[in-house]
C-alpha cells in the first residue's frame, strides 16, 4: 500500500483530479441543459414524450461505442469525452426534472396563477422548489454514472483514473487496477454524499423527510 502510494501517489492525485474535472464539466453541462429543458417540456407535453424517448435511446448506446463515435467529430482527448459523458448525464436529469415538475400538485400551480404569478414566477417560486427533491435525485444519479463512466474516457485519451486501470490490465498489475478503481468508487460516493447535502439545503423545509 505504502509502496504503491510512493510509486504512484502523485499520478493518482493528478488522475483523480482529471476524472473529477471531466465528470464535473459533463455533469454541469448536463444540468444546465437538462433542467431547463425538462421544465420547458412540461409546457409542451406532446413534444416531451418525443424528446424523452430520444434521450432514452441515446442512453442505450454502449458507452464505449459512444466514446468511439465522438472521435470522428471531436478527435481524441478531453473534449469528446466530456461530450459523451454529457450526453449520458442528460437522461436521468431530464426525466426527473420533467416528472418532478409534472408531479407538483396542480392545486398549487392553480393557486400561484390565481394569485397573479407570471408563468416564470410560478416556475421559479413554486414549481421548481416543490420539484427539487426529484430533480436532485436525477442529478445525483447522473453524477454517479458520469464519474464511473469517465473511467472509460481514458480510451480516447481523456486521461483520468482509467489510465491507471487500463495500464494495470495491459501490464497484468492488479495493484494498479485496484489502485485506480478504489478512488473512482470513493469519488462517486463522496460526490453523491456532497450532492445529498446540497439537496437538503435546496429542499424546502416541509419537504425534508
Amino acid at each position, binding site marked *: 500500500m505504502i509502496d504503491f502510494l510512493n510509486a504512484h501517489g502523485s499520478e493518482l492525485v493528478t488522475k483523480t483530479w482529471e476524472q473529477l474535472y471531466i465528470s464535473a464539466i459533463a455533469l454541469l453541462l448536463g444540468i444546465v441543459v437538462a433542467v431547463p429543458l425538462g421544465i420547458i417540456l412540461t409546457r409542451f407535453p406532446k413534444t416531451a414524450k418525443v424528446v424523452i424517448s430520444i434521450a432514452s435511446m441515446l442512453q442505450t448506446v454502449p458507452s464505449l461505442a459512444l466514446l468511439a463515435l465522438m472521435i470522428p467529430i471531436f478527435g481524441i482527448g478531453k473534449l469528446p469525452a466530456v461530450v459523451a459523458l454529457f450526453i449520458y448525464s442528460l437522461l436521468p436529469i431530464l426525466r426527473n426534472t420533467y416528472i418532478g415538475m409534472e408531479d407538483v400538485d396542480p392545486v398549487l400551480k*392553480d*393557486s400561484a396563477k390565481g394569485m*397573479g*404569478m407570471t408563468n416564470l414566477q410560478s416556475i421559479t417560486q413554486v414549481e421548481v422548489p416543490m420539484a427539487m427533491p426529484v430533480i436532485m435525485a436525477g442529478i445525483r444519479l447522473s453524477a454517479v454514472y458520469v464519474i464511473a463512466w469517465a473511467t472509460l474516457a481514458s480510451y480516447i485519451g481523456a486521461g483520468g483514473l482509467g489510465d491507471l486501470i487500463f495500464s494495470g490490465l495491459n501490464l497484468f498489475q492488479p495493484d494498479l487496477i485496484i489502485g485506480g478503481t478504489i478512488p473512482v468508487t470513493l469519488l462517486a460516493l463522496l460526490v453523491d454524499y456532497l450532492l445529498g447535502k446540497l439537496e437538503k439545503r435546496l429542499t424546502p423545509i*416541509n419537504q425534508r423527510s
Partner: protein
Amino acid sequence: MTEDNPILVYKDVAKIYKGGNVAVEHINLTIHKGDFVCLIGTSGSGKTTTMRMINRMLEPTSGEILFNGEDIHTSDPVTLRRHIGYVIQNIGLMPHMTIYENITLVPKLLKWPDDKRREKAEELIKLVELPKEFLDRYPSELSGGQQQRVGVIRALAANQDLILMDEPFGALDPITRESLQELVKNLQEKLGKTVVFVTHDMDEALKLATKIVVMDGGHIIQDASPEEILRHPANQFVEELIGAERLIQARADVTTVDQIMLKNPVSITPGRSLGEAIRLMRKRRVDTLLVTDDEGYLKGFIDVESLDNNYSRATSVSDILNTKIFYVASDTLLRDTVDRILKRGLKYVPVVDKAGKLLGIVTRAALVDMVYDTIWGDNGDGGDDDNDDTSQPATDDVTGVAAGHNLATDTPTDHKEA
C-alpha cells in the same frame, strides 16, 4: 346598498369547452360593491366556471365581463389577478413557504416594501385571531381550520376589493365551518369587500349571502336576495335546493294564521243542552266544541271528557264550559302558532278577530296541508294523495277540531282567559 356603478357585470357570458361541452350559457349578472354573492347549485352546474372567468383563469367563449366598468378582456390577466383575491377550492397554501410568505405573496409580487408587508401580515393574522408566532410556521404545522383562515386573509393581503372564494369551507367540521363563516361575513362587512362565494350548501348561502345566484345545468335559474329566494323560489329545482324544511319555516315566517285557518269551526252556544252537544260532536266527528255566544264571541270550549264526567249532574253547555282557552288573533304570524302547535302538543288553536269573535281554527290537519303544499307544490289539489298522512284520516273537510285526536290527551298549557 350601492352606488350606480356595479363592480362586476356579466353580459350574456358563455363558456363552451372543446367538443361542444357547454359549461355555462347566457350568464347575465350584476354584482354591486359590498355584495356578498353566493353561487349555489349542484355539482357540475357551472359555479366554478362562472367564477373563474372573473379573474381570467378561464376565458369566456362569448359575451363579456366588466370589472369596475372595464372589459376584463382588455386587461392584463396577471395584473387583474393581483387585484382580485382568490381562495381556491382546496386552499392552496404554498407548503414550502412560511405563513408569513404565504400571506404576503401577492404584496411581494406587487413589490411592496418589507416593512409594509410585515405590518400587513401582522394586522391580518390578528384579524383572524391567530397568534403572531404562526407567521413563522409552515402550513403543515397548522390545523385545517387554521390553514383556511390563512387562506382567507391571504386573499385580502393586497387590499383587494373583490374576493373570489370557491367552496372554501368544504372540508371542515361543522363547528370550525361555522366560525369561519362568521369570520368571513364579519370581515366582509367590516372591510366593505365584495365577495363572490361558491357553495353547494344552502345553509351557508342563506347565512352569508346578500344575493344568491342559483345555477343548474350551466344556467342561472334565479338571482335574488335570500329572503326573496325563500319566499318565491323560481321553480321546483330551487325549492328542492332550499329543502322542504326551510321552506316551511320561511312560509311560516310570512303567512298569517287566517290564511290557513279552517273557517266555520264546529261551535255551540252556552245555552244548548249537553245532549245537543254530544250529538253535534258525533255528527261532525270531533271531540271538542268551541263555545261562542250568540254574537259569535269566543267563550271557551267543552270536550268529550268533561261532558262524559258531568253528564249526570250538568244539563247545559255553560255548566261544563272551560274558559281557559288559548287563542290567537287572525293576523298572528303562522310561525308562532306552528311553534305552539308542534312543540307544545296543542291539537288546535282557535282564531279570533280583534274584537274576540271566533273566525276559524288552525288544526294540525291544516298544518299538514301546508307542509304538503310546500313539498309537493302549490297546485296539489289535495284529492287522492291525502291519505298518505295516516295519522290524520280524512281530515280534509272537517271544520273543527282534528278528528284524529279523539282522546283529549293534553290541555293547552298556555291558557288565556276567554
